[in-house]
């Protein structure tokens, strides 16, 4: 595809309510005789059917999902491992991430360059990496290379070499990236927010590690992590595209079937700290904007309140509603984007409201965000506002099953989070069943405006007086060059 600089209007919708004009005034009507009229009626609605897919479990415990889809002659494979930075041991943050980047950098029988040569030559693409709860390898090839790709996937997942030279190379890449990230306000705001919310729980530490933890990681750490977690009964494979289900399962059996299952140790991590009010400012004197994050710990994905809580947070700052966008952008022009999201992970989760605004309007923006969070917790949402959010979430369901990979993502999600697969089919009905009472209940249960974690990254000396004027005091200021997420005080030690 052509590379382009795209400047978008922004993903977040505008004001609530019916937006059709019922009168004609203040209009610069270039076309003078343009009719004043209501919007057209919709056509008859069409049935929405979730496309066919199959889920089977091999004898060794590997869960295999197939989605047959024959429009384009391509097949993609998505391998998900139920292991990520949550498995990183204390002092070794970065092990899961480094393992992820090293998977395609050489196996016991193929060098890094041989893997690259092979996948590039067949016009495929290969990517590996990790997050907090999972690691992944994604491969996409044209259908005539499906067999080759499955062999390669199996080799990468089962037999990574972890060659010393490759480890050093990846460490250097990560260190340099961290050096750049250390001056990126968006990255700093995100990682510091997680650190405040989750403390020294692995969710609170940067996935890629820090220069100190990276230096401490050895080849044996990577091998041990891989051996413990990369076992078939801890993995899910989705095969998607221009093949039949039977071909997919047969190929999975061929390349993974003989791999023996192994015991999986449950995750042992410390609890995140109870939520407490903490405001941390990272001072970056040359910043022209302030990055703001406000939120706190909430609930994991597999929680019976998840859907209602997700809707509540969408009313605060998601598609279909978004009070923050209306108040900060549409009404006041303070930002390009303001949003909130429920970040529900495997073990626990949080909600976070975020924006960026010019230095001069930092205090105003923060005040408005915190007030909107308080309002969500304090006031019952109107039926109208809730139904707008529901209309978007339920109505947009067919948009989320358009491409083969969209379909696979839906199935992978329920399998990964161990939710009943029927949930896909009942999604729209479940969304529509949520009531204003449900929203009020979950907002009261999980939103504590007096215990918010707040991060501001920007030119502190310019905006600190504003904060005091709008009622915020008792904050910590850390100069950007002294920030250390591994320290309890968040500052580099003496």
């Amino acid at each position: 595809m052509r590379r382009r600089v795209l400047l978008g209007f922004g993903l977040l919708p505008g004001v609530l309510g019916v937006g059709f004009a019922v009168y004609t005034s203040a209009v610069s009507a270039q076309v003078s005789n343009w009719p004043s009229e209501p919007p057209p009626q919709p056509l008859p609605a069409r049935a929405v059917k979730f496309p066919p897919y199959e889920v089977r479990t091999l004898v060794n415990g590997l869960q295999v999902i197939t989605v047959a889809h024959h429009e384009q002659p391509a097949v993609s494979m998505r391998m998900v491992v139920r292991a990520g930075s949550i498995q990183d041991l204390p002092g070794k943050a970065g092990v899961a991430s480094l393992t992820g980047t090293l998977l395609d950098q050489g196996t016991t029988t193929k060098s890094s360059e041989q893997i690259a040569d092979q996948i590039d030559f067949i016009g495929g693409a290969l990517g590996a990496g990790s997050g907090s709860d999972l690691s992944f390898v994604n491969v996409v090839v044209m259908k005539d290379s499906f067999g080759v790709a499955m062999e390669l996937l199996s080799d990468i997942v089962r037999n990574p070499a972890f060659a010393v030279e490759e480890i050093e190379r990846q460490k250097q890449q990560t260190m340099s990236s961290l050096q750049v990230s250390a001056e990126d306000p968006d990255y700093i705001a995100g990682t510091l927010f997680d650190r405040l919310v989750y403390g020294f729980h692995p969710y609170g530490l940067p996935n890629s590690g820090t220069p100190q933890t990276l230096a401490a990681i050895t080849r044996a750490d990577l091998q041990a992590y891989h051996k413990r977690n990369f076992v078939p009964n801890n993995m899910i494979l989705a095969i998607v595209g221009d093949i039949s289900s039977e071909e997919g399962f047969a190929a999975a059996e061929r390349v993974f079937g003989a791999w023996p299952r192994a015991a999986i140790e449950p995750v042992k991590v410390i609890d995140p700290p109870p939520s407490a009010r903490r405001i941390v400012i990272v001072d970056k004197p040359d910043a022209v904007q302030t990055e703001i994050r406000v939120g706190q710990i909430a609930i994991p994905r597999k929680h019976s309140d998840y859907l209602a809580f997700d809707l509540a947070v969408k009313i605060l700052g998601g598609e279909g509603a978004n009070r923050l966008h209306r108040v900060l952008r549409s009404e006041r022009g303070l930002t390009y984007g303001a949003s909130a999201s429920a970040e529900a992970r495997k073990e626990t989760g949080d909600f976070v409201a975020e924006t960026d605004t010019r230095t001069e309007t930092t205090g105003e923006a923060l005040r408005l965000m915190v007030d909107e969070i308080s309002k969500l917790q304090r006031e019952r949402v109107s039926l109208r506002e809730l139904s707008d959010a529901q209309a978007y979430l339920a109505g947009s369901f067919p948009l989320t099953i358009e491409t083969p990979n969209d379909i696979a993502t839906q199935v992978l999600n329920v399998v990964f989070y161990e939710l009943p697969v029927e949930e896909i089919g009942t999604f729209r009905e479940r969304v529509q069943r949520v009531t204003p009472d449900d929203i009020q209940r979950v907002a009261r249960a999980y939103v504590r405006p007096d215990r918010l974690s707040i991060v501001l990254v920007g030119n502190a000396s310019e905006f600190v007086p504003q904060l005091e004027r709008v009622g915020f005091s008792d904050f910590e200021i850390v100069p950007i060059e002294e920030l250390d997420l591994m320290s309890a005080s968040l500052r580099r030690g003496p």
Partner: protein
Amino acid sequence: MRWYLRLAACLAVSIVASVALTPMQAAVRPPKLQYQITTLPNGLRVILSEDHSTPIVHVSVWYHVGSKNERAGRTGFAHLFEHMMFKGSKNVEPESHTSIIAGVGGQSNAYTTEDITVFWQTLPAHYMPLALWMEADRMATLRVDEAAFRREREVVKEERRMRIENQPYGRLSEIIYDNSFLTHPYKHPTIGSMADLEAASIADVRDFHRTYYVPENATVTIVGDFDSAQALQMVTQYFGRVPKATRPVPRDIPTEAPMTRERRVVVEEAWPLPAVVVAYPITYDGHPDSYPLHVTSKILSDGQSARISRELIYNRRLCLTAFGSGNITEHPNLFYAVCIVQPGQTPEAAEKAIIAEFDKLKTGGVTEQEMQRSQNQWARDYILSRESNEEKAMHLAHAAVIHNDITTADGEFDIFMKTTAADVQRVARTYFNDTNRVVLHILPKGTPR
């Protein structure tokens, strides 16, 4: 993950082709797009492509205006105007377009490039009439309100701060273009300058709408689950009543004189690591040379085995990230390579290594194996970028608007498959010369020189 981390994850290895590489026959040929194209009496172009696999529809309106149409002192205006299109029209309240579409389960947005401004919505198929009606309403009767304009200008200034000024390397593209062009408006960034955004007036808004947001400058594309006859009837009903423009759309854009000697620039930015850029002016999108140039981008940078990835990032560890590719657009643009220099390495070494890669294309050409690889990668991109209705609409509209020839939406596949190693070497010799080269060293603030 941030872009530099993502790019850093893309590594490559040495040049030994020790894998048994089975030469493949021509890449798998993807199915052709089925479509119809028609022009209404008022000049509006309409493209329809049915796809009944999911009950949704994508509706886009491409206006053939972008930042290259801006006049001096008004940089950023095309994009600022894009934002104004959400400020309501005769039958649609201000700021409600997005929420109306969301209220029926749809998504909508807009974007501006140097060449085009695009408004789109993807929504459940039975709401297609709503999207068409709303797009026609704002084409014909945009509301223009002083207070809304001032507020939106602040939003766009925040967008500039967010995208360009407040993140490491955010200004990279701006610096490259400012130093590579003298007269053509590609010199300035689509987001514009703060001063020009401030200078824009409400009169500019009215004038821009009258000049460029007219049927003959617009292309409506609909892809998805609909009936073509019914869709055409609706497009005619809602857009057909927008009158034909009374004056032609201006196309008087200054051209760039050819470079005659190398331009070298050293600047400082508050970035953590130095950046080195080597840029060459090239041709326009659709020119016969543009296809070998696309192939060249793949040979240099697609995949870990591509030349720049393997040599500069992997083997020599000169760059944290590096790429070389053509930005091929409606008017002649640039082919450029960028290296973010690793700590301990020098910008001079990076420059030398980048230029060596361009020289190798000229002197040594490319191997048949590299050609085959690039074509297979091209076929993959071609197939994977035609999965969603939105992607199909983009290809169709791009062919119609930028190439003024919708058949290229499919025809380009065969052009690429016929491109040869000799073509790649020929265009390298045509464009990658030391007399038309821009070399930029962008150093961290305070670097001793």
